[in-house]
């Protein structure tokens, strides 16, 4: 039975000016009350433009838009929400920073605020207000957002990226669930391949899925791109060990992964062409939405296995919010961001994202969205398990450019595909990375 409904009240996928999403009267009432006591009063005649990444889950986009709409109705500040594709958002926000005009607020990706910190306004007061009210920020959220002692962005949400697998296939391969160590994981993948239910991980220039699993492989074996002093250490025995693991793992993949961008593994999983991959919760959400019950019932999510390093070293995606200095209405912007992270709205957004997004504030740990469906359980721990992509060096221009150039992804792809030996791949990646960290 097709449970699929399209609610076209909100054309949130296109940057249509707000007015289409309707906040409930209760929310508006609450917003008005909030606006009276809010620490930031919007300036007179304020208008805001907010640029965000295109929503993956429709209900999340709608919840977000409803919350923004409530703000508008309560404060009289019109807010225009534009969406941009994942890959286009980052250059566009960099351009806005560079030319000093464009959107006021950007709900951006990764640690981009560190690319142009001088073009952003300080958000320390907002962060402290929210931290005090909601039991504090998780350390990683704070790390991502601070430059010295000042907060340059607000870590609005994180998005978890975990192993997605087909239960029957994994059991047939001799495991109850995805094993928690890398050695057994390799065995699992080999058995899956033998049984004709191969797994597959994206090895193309996939900025989401590709980066997540390749960094996990690297870190779980003790390797990393830079050390604490920002010296490139890719050419190290740990990295080579990781790549040797990958070259074995790569043999178990379904063919074609080297061309996979972020959407291909979703498609393959939903077609039952792969039985194990890494992804956010969007595969599960899509299966439920499209009524593909045999997949939705037969799939689950698992943590990444832990490697010889001994602790969980995973990379999940942060989506911070930042405000440009060129905005004419900084108070309005701060008010909006604060409003969005207050309980009712944030709860609604969490609920709407059905597990796709997770929280950086400790108080939201008990949100019902995690308990409603046991399959969402692992995503709750996103913020506990993620470490920044600049590990273990500093966040800044070098880390961000190296990340954008897919150095780690390419290195792993070379080893997995047998194009280069692990030692060669590591050495070449070292050279590439050194260019960026020389600056």
């Amino acid at each position, binding site marked *: 039975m097709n449970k699929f409904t399209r609610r076209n009240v909100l054309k949130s*996928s*296109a940057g249509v000016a707000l007015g289409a999403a309707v906040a409930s009267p209760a929310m508006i009432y609450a917003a008005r009350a909030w606006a009276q006591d809010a620490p930031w009063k919007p300036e007179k005649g304020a208008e805001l433009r907010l640029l965000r990444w295109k929503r993956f889950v429709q209900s999340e986009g709608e919840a977000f838009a409803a919350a923004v709409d409530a703000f508008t109705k309560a404060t009289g500040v019109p807010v225009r929400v*534009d969406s*941009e*594709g994942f890959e286009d958002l980052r250059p*566009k926000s960099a351009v806005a920073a560079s*030319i000093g005009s464009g959107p006021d607020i950007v709900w951006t990706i990764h640690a981009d605020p560190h690319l142009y910190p001088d073009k952003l306004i300080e958000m320390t007061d907002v962060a402290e207000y929210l931290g005090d009210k909601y039991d504090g920020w998780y350390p990683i959220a704070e790390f991502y957002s601070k430059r010295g002692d000042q907060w340059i962005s607000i870590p609005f949400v994180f998005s978890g990226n975990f192993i997605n697998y087909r239960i029957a296939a994994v059991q047939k391969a001799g495991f109850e669930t995805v094993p928690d160590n890398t050695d057994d994981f390799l065995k699992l993948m080999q058995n899956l391949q033998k049984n004709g239910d191969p797994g597959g991980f994206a090895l193309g220039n996939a900025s989401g899925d590709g980066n997540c699993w390749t960094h996990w492989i690297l870190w779980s074996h003790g390797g990393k791109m830079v050390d604490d002093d920002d010296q490139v250490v890719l050419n190290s025995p740990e990295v080579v060990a990781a790549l040797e693991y990958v070259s074995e793992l790569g043999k178990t993949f379904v063919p074609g992964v080297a061309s996979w961008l972020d*959407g*291909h593994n*979703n498609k393959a999983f939903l077609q039952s062409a792969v039985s194990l991959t890494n992804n956010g919760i969007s595969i599960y959400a899509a299966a439920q939405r499209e009524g593909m019950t045999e997949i939705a019932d037969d799939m689950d999510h698992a943590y990444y296995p832990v490697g010889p390093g001994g602790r969980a070293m995973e990379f999940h995606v942060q989506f911070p919010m930042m405000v440009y200095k060129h905005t004419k209405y900084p108070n309005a912007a701060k008010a909006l961001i604060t409003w969005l992270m207050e309980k009712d709205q944030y709860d609604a957004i969490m609920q709407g994202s059905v597990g796709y997004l997770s929280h950086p504030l400790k108080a939201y740990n008990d949100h019902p969205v995690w308990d409603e469906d046991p399959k969402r359980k692992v995503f709750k721990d996103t913020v506990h398990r993620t470490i920044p992509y600049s590990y273990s060096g500093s966040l800044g221009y070098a880390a961000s450019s190296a990340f954008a150039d897919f150095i780690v992804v390419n290195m792993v792809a070379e080893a997995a595909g047998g194009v280069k030996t692990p030692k060669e791949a590591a050495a070449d990646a070292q050279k590439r990375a050194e260019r960026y960290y020389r600056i």
Partner: protein
Amino acid sequence: MTDTAQVRQPERPVVHDEGGMDYLERLPRKVVTVYIPLAIIVFVLLFPFYWMGISTFKTNAELHAYKGIQALWVYEPTLENLRYLLWDTEYPRWVWNTMLVTVTSTFLSIFCAVCAAYSIERLRFTGARYVGMAIFLAYLVPPSILFIPLAIMVFKLGLFDSNLALILTYPTILIPFCTWLLMGYFRSIPYELEECALVDGATRLQILTKIILPLAVPGLISAGIFAFTLSWNEFIYALTFISSAENKTVPVGAITELITFDVYNWGALMAGALLGSLPVAIFYSFFVEHYVSSMTGAVKE
């Protein structure tokens, strides 16, 4: 008084289109050496369009059921993809943007090209040949080289994210070829016509508008078609200079908006590809003869 109407018409290059010497060939041989290869090539050239077309009408299930189903035909045709494209995305807006940008930059380029071609071909001022060469050399600098500095210029001029940025930058791609095309065309118009008009006291501008242009209408149409096609087709400038969804052109919009990160909406993508190709194909089908014959005129340079 000379009667300009009696002067011979512009010389068109002699075109031999009767099929050469194939009256000497026998049919079976012709089938093997001509018809079969032709059929194969045409099939290969058209197959992607067929595939685009039927994918537009397939449901999601059919698109991905790659085992056990006849892929070359549609079993449960659906208009859902088209509906999604036209109603749930900004697609109509993109078509409008692309039309606006294309038509405006085409007119702008034709205007510049006509003046330039006339100047080089007819006025023959000193250094005309070199200027002609310089224009041709403009092709050495294609968009994939210029887009970065142009992006910076566009930001500084405040044109970022507006159609005006495209309208002003597309002519750099269009003017060189249109000028070259029109040069060939103007060259074929006999100079006597102008001389007569000059003797009769016409100014250069009058000559251009009243004599040359009417005679060069086929050339103008060809240049216009070419400019229209190139402009509709352009991608990298539109990708770099335009940001908001409602300002995008069709090629950029199809790529960036129909792919929502994790989920590739293949049906909608193919629908977008199909609908995006149709205007150009239709527009062009009216003028293809001009296009082909203008190539003849141009290559006789």
